[in-house]
């Protein structure tokens, strides 16, 4: 609850900051300061809920899990601000507005991790989506950005309609919006409710860009200003997954009803993994490759949604952290480059060794190499799926896809280290390098001791 209030207020603060502060650098510092306050407020709530959880007016439930997730989302955003905050200036004039929009998205994410009513779920998804439409079109001078925005808006509002329809059907079947009272697990499966669940699954699949609802992703991620893609592909996506896993594991579990949606989601997962990984292989632009990689990684996170056990919950937390931090890091490096194709990375190891080493660590994390956070993230979701028992085929698909993913991730390393070239970069400050090293250290630390995060669940 603290996180929700503080992020919403921070958004308002940032909007007004634009009126009174004209120095863009200073606006960035204000945003970082305000974000730290939000993070502190979120952690402070731990003391008030004690060992259990606390429900507000039957709408919002705060638990250890949600606080931990909020902390990860806010922490990842902090890293994002520190690494790429300065790049906001290159997008357009209204820097403070961008920060405000990001804070509004964050409040949507904190709502997604705490909702206990279907209405709040709908609000969370909408609050996350609408500022993104604006951010996607922030670069008004390039038509690609406007195209991305329009595309995202049309497709997004369509999926919102489906989400609403699903919620309505579930409400019609059960007579309540309260997640805890739905009681879908008990007894006979209600056809009306099942339709609602399936519509919900489709709508949420769209939001996390799972196949076959992923077609908007490459264009939107490619067209949007790169800084915002970095945020949309990471923290926002993790927020979508938290909503996904909370509603499906929280309300749709039961003897009969689980099987009804589990197979459907398993197929969506397999399709996402296959399409994401295979298409990423053929990309020539790193930015587009990362867009497909985000689809592929969504496939791995879906493994956690499909499998219902504690490993899945632990897995989604680790995955959200590992994936967000690593991808934000790669995007931060890429923003500094002149050329976003693989060739643009050629010879980076010689011109900017620090950037090359840290990018290697991020890429290894995404590929799931041991001693990086990504390994344990993959490990947990795979364990969850193996534990499920009937999903071994999906695990095999996932593992094959993981091996394929090494191909396109390592192309970045090959370009940086083994190819001749002079990668051109914007001037790189010492602070940026330091921040990159800290981020890489976080990735490795989580890769050796994943317990650091898991002990809080």
């Amino acid at each position, binding site marked *: 609850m603290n996180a929700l209030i503080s992020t919403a207020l921070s958004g308002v603060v940032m909007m007004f900051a634009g009126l009174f502060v004209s120095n863009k650098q200073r606006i960035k510092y204000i945003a970082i300061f305000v974000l730290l306050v939000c993070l502190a407020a979120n952690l402070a709530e731990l003391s008030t809920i004690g060992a259990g959880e606390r429900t507000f007016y039957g709408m919002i439930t705060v638990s250890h899990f949600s606080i931990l997730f909020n902390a990860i989302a806010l922490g990842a955003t902090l890293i994002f601000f520190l690494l790429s905050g300065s790049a906001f200036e290159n997008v357009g004039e209204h820097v403070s507005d961008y920060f405000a929009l990001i804070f509004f998205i964050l409040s949507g994410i904190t709502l997604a991790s705490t909702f206990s009513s279907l209405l709040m779920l709908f609000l969370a998804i909408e609050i996350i989506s609408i500022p993104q439409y604006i951010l996607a079109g922030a670069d008004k001078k390039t038509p690609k950005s406007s195209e991305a925005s329009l595309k995202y808006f049309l497709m997004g509002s369509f999926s919102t309609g489906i989400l609403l329809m699903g919620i309505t059907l579930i409400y019609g079947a059960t007579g309540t919006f309260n997640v805890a009272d739905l009681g879908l697990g008990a007894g006979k499966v209600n056809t009306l409710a099942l339709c609602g669940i399936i519509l919900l699954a489709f709508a949420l699949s769209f939001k996390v860009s799972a196949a076959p609802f992923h077609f908007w992703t490459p264009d939107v991620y490619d067209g949007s200003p790169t800084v915002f893609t970095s945020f949309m592909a990471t923290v926002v996506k993790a927020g979508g997954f938290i909503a996904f896993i909370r509603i499906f594991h929280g309300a749709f579990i039961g003897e009969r009803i689980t099987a009804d949606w589990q197979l459907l989601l398993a197929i969506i997962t397999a399709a996402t993994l296959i399409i994401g990984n295979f298409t990423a292989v053929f990309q020539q632009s790193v930015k587009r490759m990362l867009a497909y990689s985000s689809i592929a990684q969504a496939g791995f996170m879906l493994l956690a949604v499909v499998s219902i056990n504690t490993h899945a919950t632990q897995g989604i937390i680790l995955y959200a952290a590992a994936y967000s931090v690593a991808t934000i890091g790669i995007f931060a490096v890429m923003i500094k480059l002149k050329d976003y194709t693989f060739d643009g990375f050629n010879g980076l190891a010689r011109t900017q060794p620090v950037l090359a080493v840290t990018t290697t660590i991020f890429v290894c994390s995404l590929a799931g190499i041991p001693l990086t956070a990504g390994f344990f993230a993959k490990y947990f979701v795979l364990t969850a799926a193996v534990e499920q028992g009937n999903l071994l085929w999906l695990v095999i698909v996932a*593992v094959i896809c993981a091996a394929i993913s090494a191909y396109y991730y390592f192309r970045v390393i*090959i370009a940086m280290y083994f190819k001749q070239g002079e990668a051109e970069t914007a001037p790189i400050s010492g602070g940026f390098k330091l921040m990159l090293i800290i981020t890489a250290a976080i990735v490795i630390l989580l890769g050796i001791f*994943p317990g650091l995060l898991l002990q809080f669940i």
Partner: protein
Amino acid sequence: MLTVLLILIPLVAGLITFGLKGSGPKAMGLIASLASLAVTLGALFQFRTAPASLQFSANWIPQLGAQFSVGLDGMGLMLCLLTAISFLLIFIVIFNRDYERANNFYGLMLLSQAGLVGVFTAYDALLFYVFWELALIPVYFLCSLWGGEKRIPVTFKFFVYTFAGSLLMLIGLIYIYLQTPEHSFSYASFTSGSVAPQDQSWLFWLFFVAFAIKMPVFPFHTWQPDTYEQSPTPVTMVLSGIMVKMGLFGVVRWLLPVLPKGAYMWSDVAIVLSIIGIIYASCIAIVQSDIKRLIAYSSIAHIGLMSAAIFTNNEQSLQGLMVQMFNHGINIIGLWIIVEIIQNRLKIKNLNEMGGIAQYAPGIAIFLVTISFANIALPLTNGFIGEFLMFSGLFQYNVWFMAVAGLGVILGAVYTLNMVQKVIFGQSNQLTETTTDLKGNELLVLSIIVVIILVLGVYPKPMLELVSSTTELVNKVY
């Protein structure tokens, strides 16, 4: 604690080496490998007096029941000894060579040593997996940065191959982990026999493919000749001398005791694949004109025999395997050193362009002949005792298997002696006339190797005693 030290020395030294300049990396490599050897010898001594003190365990990820648990048994110690000796020899041989970005080269070499020792000492399945992957990464960079012309696609293939194999093994590990009653990765709970026989049947393949790619066993070998050819020779020595032992070690430590019924069910198939590998690789080796590829295929043939011996389910062939793991490492590193010396002097790899070196560099000729004899397992060389024991075990398992595998020895003599003949005898040409004989450090290293070859060939008892605890243990699990 000595065991932890064995991993830490190359790890820390490797990390420090990245920051060194000038001749610092070379010195660091020598110091670190000498220190590793000293600690290994210390561990060897302690193994006789107080073997329990070599075990070390600490909490790692309590949520998973994974522990940082390392230890040494006879087999682990033998392989650590091989690693320590090999790295020392490699560092001595390349002491006069100047590599570009030497700090990175030596740093990565030391890191790969740390990964290898980690694999040989891990007593926790997850830890084993982590080290297994870690040993791969530095080697990938070494091959890609300092290799031959086609290095990038070749090492990439190598990486994707082994990575895919490892991931299959990861599924197997997770599955067994979930079957253990207390959800633990410890060696004890993995070998407690909690996996149902019908599961063992398919789990076997997840593990076997991962190990078979590393060894490599036919038909998972296609990455190997290219990689050996394109890698810089010191890295090829690590790959062929030590890294292939990871696969054999994996089968003995993590496959046979964990999935005994699975191994029993599929032993015929595994042996047949291995024997096909022996014959197939030997035949290809005969027609090779590139000396590096010839030795690469000869390595596949030797590994094929070892992998067949593992699955014969008797103590004799396991003893032979243990001895041969060590000896094959020493012999093949010896061969690579000679290749490195010739390549360094003449800059050629093609056998047909060589010849007559014996007249100009008798030292090289003597050592090449001796090591080649060991490679074809002539009696009184170290190769003999291991192959003899393995064939004898294979004979007890199935006479026909032994008969076909035995052809490998004949074919081995054909390609090895053919190579010797083409390199050192025959007509010399303008290029080979310029060959200079061995220098101090090369002479030292090759002498050490020949001493090991002869001593272990005449008196292999200490080696057999060292590994006896492991071979007896393995025999019990069936």
